[in-house]
């Protein structure tokens, strides 16, 4: 490359290139990689036995169970919504369409604390419908329904946001052909649309699941932190940390790091499929 005047005019000198690469690697290394490694460092500080002990603790196991259970309800709910919303929005033109898209994005703009708080205002002891529900023996706040609601709120847009642009880009000639040829709406969706959007759908599901399992602020407001009952994994990490059980806190946190990294790898693999199909 050296001495090529055409390149010299559209490229930076080598020392600037090295400087930019150096700053980039340094910034990410120091800011992202070191803290990530520190989680494992702290988790394994007292050896493998202590690490394993923190993970099989009954409260930790209950938190793992609750975390997966919550995601297992929230993610399918938002998946069905995402498919319905993207069909309506990407396949049809109607007044208020862009307002609807903005409203779907709204949960991403709202602070997680406020996302939890609105459910306390609705279903709490002094909430709008809380006392009435309590009279009928239904508890939402400081119980499972509240955790599921708050999680569903914060993960609300993830599937829809992936599918709307994808379905818009793909167009709907094939669907129209299927309908004209006599397929029912459901057949068209299952046999024509679903194969076209399945990787985009999976991508949205991975994003949604990762956030559902890792949500902290919103769930923290509605959970009440009842050990073994309403503690999700991130809340369990906080409790351990506040009780000065640092090694155990980082051990449980490392589990969440593994989940997050797995979601990142899944996203990369799926993104490749979305591009090629």
């Amino acid at each position: 490359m050296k001495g090529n005047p055409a390149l010299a005019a559209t490229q930076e000198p080598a020392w600037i290139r090295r400087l930019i690469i150096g700053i980039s690697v340094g910034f990410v290394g120091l800011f992202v990689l070191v803290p990530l490694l520190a989680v494992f460092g702290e988790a394994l500080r007292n050896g493998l036995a202590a690490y394993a002990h923190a993970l099989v603790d009954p409260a930790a196991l209950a938190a793992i169970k609750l975390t997966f259970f919550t995601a297992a309800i929230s993610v399918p709910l938002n998946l069905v919504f995402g498919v319905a919303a993207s069909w309506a929005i990407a396949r049809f033109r109607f007044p208020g369409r862009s307002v609807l898209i903005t409203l779907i994005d709204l949960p991403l703009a709202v602070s997680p604390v406020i996302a939890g708080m609105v459910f306390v205002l609705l279903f709490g002891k002094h909430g709008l419908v809380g006392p009435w529900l309590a009279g009928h023996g239904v508890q939402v706040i400081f119980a499972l329904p509240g955790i599921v609601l708050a999680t569903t709120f914060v993960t609300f847009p993830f599937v829809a946001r992936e599918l709307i642009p994808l379905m818009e880009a793909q167009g709907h000639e094939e669907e129209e052909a299927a309908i004209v040829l006599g397929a029912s709406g459901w057949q068209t969706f299952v046999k024509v649309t679903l194969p076209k959007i399945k990787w985009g759908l999976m991508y949205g599901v991975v994003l949604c699941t990762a956030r559902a399992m890792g949500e902290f602020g919103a769930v923290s407001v509605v959970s009440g932190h009842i050990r073994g009952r309403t503690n999700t994994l991130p809340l369990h990490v906080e409790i351990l940390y506040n009780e000065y059980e640092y090694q155990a806190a980082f051990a449980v946190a490392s589990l969440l790091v593994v989940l997050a990294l797995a979601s990142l790898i899944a996203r990369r693999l799926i993104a490749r499929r979305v591009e090629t199909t």
Partner: protein
Amino acid sequence: MFRRSALPGFGLTMGYTLVYLSLIVLIPLATLVLKTAELSPGELWRLATSHRALASYKITFGASFIAALVNVVFGTLLAWALVRYKFPGRGILDAIVDVPFALPTAVSGLALTAVLAPNGWIGRFLEPLGIKAVFTPLGITLALTFIGLPFVVRTVQPVLEELEHEVEEAAAVLGATRWQTLTRVIVPAVTPALLTGFALAFARGIGEYGSVVFISGNKQFETEITPLLIMTRLEQFDYAGATALALVMLIVSFAMLLAINGLGAWARRRAGHA
């Protein structure tokens, strides 16, 4: 208005979308607005502008602003390196950029606190310099920088990828120096993306809770962010106080959302004209 379409299912999917959106998002958020309506304007103003609230806005908005600025500088450099240069480890670097977005916020907060504590892996080098990161506004800013990084990189990166090399070559052929090409050709082209990235990082920062509470120490008037103050009010069953603060946050968040959408439309128009 309605374009005729051969496709079925509009009524069903639209109906479901609206009902679900209302149940999960709109009605709960409307409750908040309803709750503020119970307060008199004077009362609302008093609660939203108490000394403690004002101090929390200052720290929340100030730290988010600085963090977003830092991210615009380093995030843009990072995006540039990822798009323009080939170097060993580029793929890994590209993947790691998403970590702050993928990591649960509580874990981010815990990890940053551990690293920046006086005996931590990075904190031990800051300590002799007299720099305290944990339990200070600096720590809050660092946590928000961590959280905001992917937003800037992932907004600027695709725009840099779309930039046509020919335009830069043309500028060079016409006698522009590299610096002139950078400031007159490249910077104007990525400005909408830079602003959008800044707005996204800022918007994320002001609502952020999990990654901040561990590192901030939560001292009133000093390191208490607004989301934490809302949390405190809720725990004291001071719903009026919490609601007033939440309304302020909600208005700012909504304004940011509109600004981001506006910037996106501007960027698309720009791209269309180019």
